[in-house]
């Protein structure tokens, strides 16, 4: 690091190294500083966003006429507490809608992993599903 750079770190002007003050380093005169500012130019800025994919609308499955006599799967996604919440729902169905056959299952793998084996089993053996919990 040379002396000029070192002095700049101290906040001192490199002009200190010169044999006499460098006029170009001096502050502008008050007259120059109070000169009226020109209007700011106008510019255009580009949109920085990426390109989202289109959304394919998916129709919801036809609803059941009733849950009476139907098999409802309670699926635990794996977030902490979800299984306990679903257990309370199972108890609610037993008490309030005893004709509903309730099956509890925790999906395989962490919450963000798909579980196609379970989805197929539910489609084959069930009538409806409740998934919990999105936390």
């Amino acid at each position: 690091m040379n002396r000029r750079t070192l002095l700049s770190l101290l906040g001192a002007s490199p002009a200190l190294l010169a044999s006499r003050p460098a006029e170009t380093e001096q502050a502008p005169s008050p007259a120059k500083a109070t000169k009226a500012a020109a209007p700011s130019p106008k510019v255009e800025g580009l949109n920085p966003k990426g390109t989202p994919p289109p959304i394919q609308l998916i129709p919801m499955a036809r609803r059941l006429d009733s849950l009476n006599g139907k098999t409802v799967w309670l699926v635990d996604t794996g977030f902490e507490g979800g299984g306990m919440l679903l257990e309370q729902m199972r108890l609610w169905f037993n008490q309030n809608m005893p004709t509903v056959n309730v099956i509890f299952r925790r999906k395989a793998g962490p919450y963000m992993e798909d579980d196609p084996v379970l989805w197929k089993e539910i489609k084959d053996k069930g009538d409806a599903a409740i998934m919990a919990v999105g936390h």
Partner: protein
Amino acid sequence: MPTTPIVTQAFRDLAILNVAKRGMPNLRITFTPHPVAAKTPAQLHAYVEGNDPVSGKPMMKEIVEALTVPLRADEEKTGLVEVSVGPVKYGPDTAKNLQQFYHDNAMTDFLPILIPTEEEVGEMLEGTSHPPDEVVGKMAGGAYPPWSYTVKQVAINAVMAGCKPEYFPTVLAIASSGTPSLMSSTNSFAYAAVINGPIRDKLNMNYGIGALGPFAQPNAAIGRAWTLVSRNLANGGVPGDTYMGSQGNNLNYNNLIIAENEAASPWVPLHVQKGFKAEENVVSLFRGLGIVPGQGARGTSTDTPKYEEQFSDLFSVFTGFFGGLVVADPLIAANLKERGYDTKDKLIDWLYKNTTQTVKDYKSRDFAYGFDYPRALKGLEPYKTWYAMPDDAVIPRWPHRDDINVVVLGGQTNAFFQGGSLSYTVSVSIDKWT
């Protein structure tokens, strides 16, 4: 099959936006109070017997109706919906007003940006031989389908971040990885990029004194560009939508940009460990929770400075879910080499064998419950074996030896080191984007 999701109240906006982006904007969602975790059965029973806090309706009645009330016409819609992100340009207006416009529309990190005019972006595009309309990659901000982006779209963000054209290939390499630096998780993630090769000197990157501080334009601007790329090109970092980190992470401003101090290191640089040649320019990405400093340089005393033990002590407070990244000053690296660690691999072997935990401590961690336990149930190792062991059994801190990485960084003013709770994800060629 009729299906209905149960979501906690804190995730209302996320749930509504998520199902809309996935094509079911009217999906019938029932909400519970938040949180569900760490509640007693009695408390959860009260949730079930109570009302949906969003709709105010009895929760179980709402669930039953979600599965049985006939569909409305808008719930049976099909078709393709295009999504607009607005006009190609904003203005004309003053730079000051445009600056505020970008802030107001959350397209910045809320620090001043350089307005991305056609002229500025054109100059940035001179930094690569790739055509402006070439698709660079896709990136998902949150748990949504990914957005795509071109070379020009990346250039716009590089301008905003304050990059020079010569930095652009590195930004493109990061963008091409599809790795966002803003993670949707409720944990507040941090990201790191290790840059290796001659480009570090070509760009005047700082890998000496204060390398991780705000003391060099390429380190600062490249890291900032990664965040703006994640924000704008992937729609990441929208609190309540694509970002749910409870506390946030200050490192997200410009991430950890680590230009490894290859000249002062006694070991092969990281990119060579990952299979690249020394003369190649490469960026390697890491993801995790952050980085913490060691507790002072015992090596300055006359005692034998067992740095490997200090590293291990530091990592003993980390979750092993993320990898361990040792960031060691060259003074430490030289000392370790003198003491027999003539390769990074020897140090990694020692750390893997000697940084341990009990099964009880392991199981107590949130990440173990949410990620490793389900893997154990699926029979994946080592999780299956670990979950079958007694609580007082001692197991490695990390599932795999490769979870540990070492880089050398710093100006040798202090035998200083830091430890990252950071997992290696991918290495990308920068040269490909020149």
